[in-house]
């Protein structure tokens, strides 16, 4: 029995199963159980990769190496905790009349399919299938974003579909160009789009084609990463969709898109000796960080604000990977992990806070500590973590990125520092009255599931203080793979 088969089969099976199961009793439990099985399978897969090293399976259609196995585990883990969180959360949403049985069925089924598509995108060896899986993941989340059927959510979903559709079309053009280059270098056929083959002969790829291909790929997948100026869909989709979806969008989908960019960057770097891909990523990343930080100041909707925070952090990661080198890549991977953990934790806390207040507007959410201390502390600690306060892991990764930037690209450091400062002022200034302050809100009908919040924050804290040696070795290997 192949663990990879299980990793991919559980969510896809879960999607079908939950579509049949519908909105019966325990649909939420089934959802969580399927995610748990996926997580178990991915842990098994990780153990095998740690023991035996990279492997390709099924005639090289899929492959697992340190870079993607770490993302597979992260995806399966956050997917599981989010399914735990969504169990009471969606029940409350249904009590509030926002969800009907049909929509619950759609939500659970699509949630599993979405996870499955991300895992396919992460593990496939074929860059064409990577594109197909990314597009399929978009399609499933479009349905999830519009699940409330309010005018605002429809608008957000339409924008999401059209903008990401256009963006990802550019990525397809880039993939076609890549195939063209591969055809010339290693011959056509099914093998020409396999990443392992391409990576072996990347120096043979035509530099002229590859530079154009990378521009299209970066713009295309960058739309899904949320890079400025093609980020417009992201705040809307995060703010209008159900909170579990905001959590997985921010925590996982953006990572998967960035993973796609990284895979392409490795090839482009191999073909081009001039470091153009890195410089482009530095440029896009820096602009994204700065613009997102200033947009943070103007937000009134709490989920929108944290969506912009996600854009900012994706920009930071793009910047780090653009710098390249073992330390920056290490920092980028670490940042990917802690951002996924912390941001999803924040969305869990924010979701319950917004449910309590009956509004996502920040001026309506007050005094969380009084009504529900756990939600309050979760939001406060999460915000501190995401803002890069020591001793959380975000501090470690941001510190590494900044120090590398000072050495490699000193001109960029002031911009980064200003952006981080502005982001701090914006988020902290708004979270503080939400957590403290007076309120007249009443507690929720169902007890919120806040265990995931603290598990995530605990992990982020641990990564800030101590990275276990096998994890450390794993990051180093992955960092080397993407051109350390």
């Amino acid at each position, binding site marked *: 029995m192949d663990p990879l088969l299980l990793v991919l089969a559980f969510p896809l099976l879960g999607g079908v199963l939950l579509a049949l199961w519908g909105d019966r009793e325990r649909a939420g439990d089934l959802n969580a159980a399927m995610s748990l099985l996926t997580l178990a399978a991915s842990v098994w897969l990780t153990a095998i990769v740690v023991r035996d090293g990279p492997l390709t399976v099924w005639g090289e259609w899929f492959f697992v190496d340190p870079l993607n196995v770490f993302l597979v585990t992260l995806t399966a883990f956050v997917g599981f905790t989010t399914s735990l969180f969504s169990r009471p959360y969606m029940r409350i949403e249904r009590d509030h009349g926002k969800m009907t049985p049909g929509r619950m069925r759609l939500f659970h089924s699509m949630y599993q399919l979405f996870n499955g598509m991300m895992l396919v995108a992460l593990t496939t060896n074929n860059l064409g299938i990577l*594109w*197909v899986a990314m597009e399929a993941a978009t*399609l499933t989340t479009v349905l999830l974003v519009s699940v409330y059927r309010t005018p605002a959510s429809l608008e957000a979903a339409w*924008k999401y579909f059209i903008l990401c559709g256009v963006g990802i*079309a550019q990525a397809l053009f880039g993939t076609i160009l890549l195939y*063209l280059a591969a055809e010339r270098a290693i011959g056509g056929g099914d093998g020409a789009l396999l990443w392992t083959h391409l990576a072996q002969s990347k120096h043979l790829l035509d530099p002229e084609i590859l530079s154009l291909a990378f521009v299209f790929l970066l713009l295309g997948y960058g739309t899904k990463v949320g890079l400025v100026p093609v980020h417009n869909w992201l705040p809307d989709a995060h703010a209008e969709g159900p909170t579990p979806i905001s959590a997985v969008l921010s925590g996982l989908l953006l990572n998967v898109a960035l993973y796609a960019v990284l895979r392409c960057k490795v090839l482009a770097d191999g073909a081009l000796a001039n470091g153009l891909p890195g410089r482009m990523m530095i440029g896009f990343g820096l602009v994204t960080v700065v613009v997102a930080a200033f947009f943070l100041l103007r937000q009134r909707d709490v989920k929108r604000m944290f969506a912009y925070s996600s854009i900012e952090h994706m920009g930071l990661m793009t910047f780090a990977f653009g710098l390249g080198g073992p330390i920056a890549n290490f920092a980028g991977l670490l940042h990917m992990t802690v951002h996924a953990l912390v941001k999803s934790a924040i969305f869990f806390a924010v979701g319950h806070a917004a449910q309590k207040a009956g509004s996502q507007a920040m001026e309506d959410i007050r005094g969380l500590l009084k009504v529900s201390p756990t939600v309050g502390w979760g939001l406060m600690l999460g915000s501190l973590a995401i803002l890069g306060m020591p001793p959380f892991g975000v501090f470690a990764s941001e510190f590494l990125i900044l120090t590398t930037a000072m050495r490699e690209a000193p001109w960029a450091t002031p911009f980064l520092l200003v952006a981080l400062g502005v982001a701090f002022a914006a988020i902290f200034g708004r979270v503080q009255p939400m957590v403290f302050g007076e309120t007249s809100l009443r507690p929720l009908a169902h007890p919120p599931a806040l265990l995931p919040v603290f598990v995530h924050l605990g992990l982020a804290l641990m990564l800030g203080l101590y990275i276990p040696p096998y994890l450390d070795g794993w990051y180093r290997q992955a960092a080397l793979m993407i051109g350390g």
Partner: protein
Amino acid sequence: MNTLLAQSINLFAVVLLVLAFAMIAQRRILTLIHLFTLQGAALAVATLIVGYLTGQHHLYFSAALTFVLKVILIPILLHRVIQRLNVRWDVETLFNIPTTMLIGIVLVIFAFNLAAPIAGLSTSIARGTLGIALACVLLSFLMMIVRAKAVPQVIGFLSMENGLFFAATAATSGMPMIVELGIAFDVLVGILILGVFMFQIREQFDSLDIRHLEKLKED
């Protein structure tokens, strides 16, 4: 005979390009769908010819796929949607067609310039048309920007897909079959979802005008 066929690929490429322009300028939704169907047919024939000339038999299959999807299935879906939404005879007011056309010309020049050095490296018989394919993609992009109604925007999206498909055929004699199947599947599912969306948008806003969808923005 074969040289004539090879030249006719160029002809079909130009037909695709002209149809992309025609779509930008077309006000009637019904005619827009007809134009899209024509574009799909031209694409299918071009793919067929490339397949015949290069002996790549999997291109026959993708030509058939294009034909079934773009000439039969999707147009039927679109016709049903506009029938049910009662927008069959809708005429859209367009903002300044000549200006849009001029921007289109600039895009075409840009695309040709971008593709020219790469086309020289390709060994495909239809390599010259890579620039045309890119131009089609950019023109559909332009169409999606200037259109304010849902159905034309969707048609722009589909026509962009046509351009991409043609790029794959022109530059590389087609992507691997499994990838093409995946892309076709995504497009089909996407169009179904968009179709459902249109009904929901209509229900919520009493109109298919995308201009209603401008509430979410930074203030």
